[in-house]
């Protein structure tokens, strides 16, 4: 389980390093792997349908902190759905990806959100709704406003991207990074020494013992 490597500032005065687990969720062929590939390798290639789970890391050096993203790319197919909750366990952020040229995939993303809401408290996870494939503008089925409105009502981040033409891919990860850091600072200022992942560990330990 991904956990923060360091809290607070290290002795040498270097900015702290945080490790975050980020999961990509969404229907098949909405471009989850391509988004990850674009972000990590800054390239686009035709990818095979993801089976099981793949994993990327990307380090983001900001002025105030260094963030190490562990990006989990999952299979989009519904049939793998129940295995997938293994992947988003312990996640710090989730990208709910849909294809702007396919209305159905937005509905699917909404279902994913409902799943996440069941498993996480709102302050436990940063969620972003991502409308991918803006390069397919001619085939657009979901208006920008539609995604935006929905995200607003749910209080989650929103952005439209294109992994193919490299539109706003870095931006969405950056937005997530900033939100994660903001929450990190909030946590420090509220002077609670425990992150939720620490609490979670204790909980799961207790569960193992009692049953």
């Amino acid at each position, binding site marked *: 389980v991904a956990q923060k490597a360091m809290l607070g500032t290290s002795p040498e005065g270097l900015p702290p390093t945080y490790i975050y687990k980020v999961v990509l969720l969404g229907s098949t062929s909405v471009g989850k792997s391509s988004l990850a590939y674009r972000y990590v390798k800054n390239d686009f290639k035709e990818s095979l*349908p993801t089976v099981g789970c793949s994993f990327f890391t990307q380090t983001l050096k900001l002025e105030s902190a260094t963030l190490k993203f562990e990006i989990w790319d999952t299979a989009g197919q519904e049939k793998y759905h129940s295995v997938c909750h293994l992947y988003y366990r312990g996640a710090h952020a989730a990208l709910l990806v849909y294809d702007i040229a396919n209305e159905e995939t937005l509905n699917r993303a909404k279902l994913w959100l409902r799943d996440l809401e069941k498993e996480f408290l709102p302050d436990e996870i940063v969620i972003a709704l991502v409308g991918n494939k803006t390069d397919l503008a001619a085939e657009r089925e979901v208006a920008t406003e539609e995604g935006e409105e929905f995200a607003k009502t749910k209080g989650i981040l929103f952005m439209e991207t294109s992994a193919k033409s490299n539109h706003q891919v870095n931006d969405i990860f950056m937005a997530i990074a900033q939100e994660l850091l903001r929450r990190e600072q909030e946590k420090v200022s509220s002077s609670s020494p425990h992150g939720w992942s620490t609490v979670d560990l204790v909980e799961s330990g207790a569960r193992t013992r009692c049953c």
Partner: protein
Amino acid sequence: MTGSTSSASSLDTSAQFQESNGQTQSTRWDEQQKVFALEQVCGVFRVDLGQMRSLRLFFSDEACTCGQLVVASRESQYKIFHFHHGGLDKLSEVFQQWKYCTETRLKDQHLADERTCMQFSIRRPKLPSSETHPEENTYRRLDVAGWLHHLNGSGQVEEEYKLQKAIFFGGIDISIRGEVWPFLLHYYSYESTSEEREALRLQKRKEYFEIQEKRLSMTPEQQKDFWRRVQFTVDKDVVRTDRSNQFFRGEDNPNVETMRRILLNYAVFNPTIGYSQGMSDLVAPLLAEVLDESDTFWCFVGLMQNTIFISSPRDEDMEKQLMYLRELLRLMHPRFHQHLASLGEDGLQMLFCHRWILLCFKREFPDAEALRMWEACWAHYQTDYFHLFICVAIVVIYGDDVIEQQLPTDQMLLHFANLAMHMNGELVLRKARSLLYQFHLLPRIPCSLHDLCKLCGTGMWDSGFIPAVECSGHHPESESCPYGGLAEVSSPKPGSEGKRGLKTRDVFAFRK
């Protein structure tokens, strides 16, 4: 290496390694600048040994001169150097000396804990004889002559067990795969005659086109639903499956369309399974070898029915596979199992091998090697679960880093994901056969693995020797074990054991 990065901290792809070792500090900087310039110009690059996880040599020839040098960073990124025309042996000598030096130095400085980033090991293409199946190398690849030898006058397979064994050890020559695979995939029965098979093909062709007809005559609503559930994904997947294979290459390749029809028709034929991603990976090689559309379809049906490991990615199937694999690892590679157990539930879920099992190693090895593994599994020689022995073999051969460096779950996933397409399939397959043999020799097996070799025809213990089955105590409390009797009542098993049993059962339960 903390604190002492001055020596042996950089490694060039050229032969400068040895020299730079002996260089004085003053010329070193100039040298580095030069190397840096070289990097820019001709793609020469350096690897900082201090930032390295492991350095391994994989020899590919018997003489141990050719092969690969694999440098892994701590982030499990790999640099691979291919030595096609020898020379790797020389490099090996250099590294041996260097390893000796660093080890001595580390010992002197009491820095034993630093060893974690300085792994150096050599893999030979051959397993030591103690680690190979005694019948290894007794079978040649099954070619036309060999195949005909297995058939009698009317085209029946005389002794299916012998054929299966020959395929298990030797594989099938590419030229007759299309001929033999339909038997392995239960499309043709072994006792059928050539004539009967021709009749069956005609019959099945008719059936196939009836299925297709059914698909094409759906009502508009049905069509819409089918598109949403199946066709949408199939359409996207077929055009990105096996495109590097000559058979599917190019725009508007008719074979891609054939693959598409087969998958769509399969979803009509078996609506409960429908289409799962990954199926296109499985059907593509079948079509490329069997060629005929209807025959491929029925082979695929057989594949989905008779090989448990890919029947469907439903949880209970996967869970059973993982349970067997965990038990096999506990038995045959306890150190690795221990490591998984130390990571708790997350480790025991073994995310790194889900794809291995779902696609039977298709994405882990180049086609030529993956298909040899398929054949070895389809032969159902002594077990229906040979693929799990292959999993164990991969872990035994390529999992040292994981144990030595106590990699956590995610790093483990990264480690094995990065090894995909870089492993030696022949070596893995030989190791897997040897593991099966060792399993066969065990005087006692835990009850958890009893079914592992029970399902297939002749079974594993055909020679009359039957191992004792012992209750391992890993049972849900409500179930009693036929081999342990009273497991649920008192069972004075150590507490930790019992707990672990429960834990593995719980593996797919979500927290809370």
